[in-house]
C-alpha cells in the first residue's frame, strides 16, 4: 500500500487506487471513528465526506509543496499543524453555512484531525511525491472515503428511516428499522458491506486460472 511511483503516466492509477482497490474504509479499514459515528443519515455522511475531502486534499497539496523545507525531525508536528488548520477552517465554515448539520456532526468535525487516513496519506505519499500526484492521490482517497460513507449512510437511512437525503421513499406506513440509525446499526451495516467486499474479492481468484493470484495479500 505504500508503493510510491512518480512516473506521470501513473497519475490515473494514483487517483483510482484510493477510490476502489485501496479504498480507505472497505479495504484498509481506516477512519472507523467517523465511518461508524456519523453515517446515520446520507446527509451527515455527505457533509462529513466533503469536509474530509477538503481537509485531505488541502493538506496533501500543502505538505507536498513545502516538503523540502520541513526537516524530517519535526515533520509529523508540521503535518498535524497543517491538518488542524484545515480542520479549523472547515469547522467554522460549516458552523456558518450549515449550522444544523454542524450540530449533528458535533465533535466529529474537530475529530477529522485525528482521522488516520489523512495523516497516513501525508506520511506515505504527499511527503515523497510531487504536488500533482499528491493531490490526485488525496482526491482518490477522499472520494473513496466519501463513497464509503455515502454507502453506509444511505443504507442506514433507507432502512432506519425509510428515506434518502430526507426524501421519504416508501410512504408513511413504512416500519422503520430503528436499530439501523442507532450505533449498533453502524457496526451491522459496515460488517455486512465488508462481508460482501471480501466475498467478492475471494470469488475473483477462484475464476482465474493463474494460481499466482491466489496468494492473499494484505
Amino acid at each position, binding site marked *: 500500500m505504500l508503493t510510491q511511483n512518480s512516473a506521470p503516466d501513473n497519475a490515473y492509477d494514483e487517483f483510482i487506487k484510493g477510490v476502489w482497490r485501496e479504498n480507505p474504509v472497505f479495504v484498509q479499514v481506516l477512519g472507523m471513528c467517523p465511518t461508524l459515528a456519523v453515517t446515520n443519515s446520507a446527509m451527515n455522511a455527505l457533509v462529513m465526506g466533503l469536509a474530509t475531502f477538503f481537509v485531505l486534499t488541502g493538506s496533501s497539496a500543502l505538505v507536498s509543496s513545502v516538503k523540502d523545507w520541513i526537516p524530517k525531525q519535526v515533520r509529523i508536528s508540521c503535518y498535524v499543524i497543517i491538518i488542524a488548520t484545515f480542520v479549523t477552517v472547515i469547522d467554522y465554515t460549516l458552523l456558518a453555512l450549515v449550522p444544523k448539520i454542524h450540530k449533528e456532526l458535533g465533535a466529529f468535525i474537530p475529530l477529522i484531525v485525528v482521522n488516520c487516513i489523512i495523516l497516513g496519506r501525508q506520511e506515505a505519499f504527499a511527503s515523497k511525491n510531487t504536488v500533482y500526484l499528491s493531490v490526485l492521490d488525496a482526491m482518490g482517497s477522499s472520494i473513496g472515503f466519501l463513497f464509503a460513507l455515502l454507502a453506509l449512510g444511505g443504507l442506514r437511512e433507507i432502512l432506519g428511516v425509510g428515506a434518502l437525503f430526507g426524501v421519504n421513499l*416508501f410512504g408513511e*406506513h*413504512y*416500519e422503520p*428499522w*430503528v*436499530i*439501523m440509525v*442507532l450505533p*449498533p446499526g453502524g457496526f*451491522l451495516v459496515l460488517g455486512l458491506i465488508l*462481508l460482501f467486499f471480501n466475498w467478492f474479492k475471494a470469488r475473483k481468484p477462484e475464476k482465474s486460472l493463474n494460481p499466482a493470484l491466489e496468494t492473499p495479500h494484505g
Partner: protein
Amino acid sequence: MEKQKQKLIVQAAPYLSHGITAPKAMLDIIYALIPVALLSVWFFGISSLWVIISATLGGVLVEWLFNRERADNPLKDGSAILTGLLLGLTLPAGLPLWMAFLGGVVAIGLGKTVWGGLGNNLFNPALLGRAFLLGNFPIAMTTWPAPIGDAGIFSVYPSTFTWPFMQVATDSVSGATPLNLMKFQHQFTDVGSLFIGNVSGSYGETSALLLLVIGGVLILRRSIDWRIPAALLGSVFVLSLIFFMVDSRLYPNPFFMLFSGGLMFAAVFMATDPVTSPLTPKGAWIFGIGMGAITVLIRLFGGLPEGVMYAVLLMNATVPLIDKISQPRAFGHGLKKDGQ
C-alpha cells in the same frame, strides 16, 4: 515451497465430549418445545403458530443458503429448526409475520453462520435474533396481545398479516405484561395465574408450571445441564428475597420474580444451549448466578421491564473466559509446593 493443505487441526481447549450427537440432543429439545407451542396456540390462537412457523422458515432459509454447497444436508442436524422454534416462542403473539421471518434470518445469519456455523457461535442465536427485533421494532415487539379468551383458537390477531416492511395498521388491544405492570404501575399480578400462564406475554413465557415439568423431564433425560437452571432460578430467588425483605412494598415477592417474564423459558431452553454455555460444572454455576444477578438488577433498577434476554446474551460473552478459569486442575499440576 509448494503450498500444501494443512491436515493438522489445532483446536482450543476444552477437549471434553458429551458423548451425545448434536442432532439427537437437538431433537430432544424440539420435542420438548412442542407442548409449549401447543399451549401457546391454546392461549393465543392460531396466530402464534403462524409466527413460530415464519421465524423457523427464516432461519432454515438462511441456513440452507449459506451451506448449500456442503455435501451433507445442512439442515439435518436440526439446529436451524430449533433456533427458529426458540425464537418464535419468545415473540409476541400478534407480531407481523414478516418481522418474525426477519428475526429468523438474523438469528441464523448473524447469530450462527457468520461465526462459522454450528458450535462456533458466541451468542445464543435465537436471543440474538430477538434482541435485533426488539431494537429494530420496539413498539411491535412490546405490544403483547391479551390471551384470546372466548374468541376461539382459529381467531387471528389483525396485526399478524401486515404487509412486509409496513407498520401495523390498527391499534391492537394490548395487554400489559405482569412485569410492565410492576415497573410502570406498581401493580403485582397474582402469582397463581402466572403459574398457570393465562397472562399477557410471549407464548413461551406464560406458563411456569408447564416449563417446570418440561425442564424436569429434560434434566432427567440429561438433555440439559441441571446446574444452569438451578443456579439461575436460585440466584434470582435469593436476590429478590433479599430485596423483598428490605422493602416488601417496593419490591415484588420472589415467587412473582420466578414465574413472570421469560425467566423460566430462558432457564430451561436458552441458558442451557450447550454451544453458548460453559462446559465445566463450576463454570455452569458461575454462568447461572451471573445471569440471575443481571436479570434481577435490570428488572428492579433498569429502564426495561424484562432483562433475562440481555442477561443471557451478556453472560454468553463471558463463556470463553469462564471456561478458561474453571478448568479442572489436571492431576499433579498447579499444586503449591510443600512448605510454601
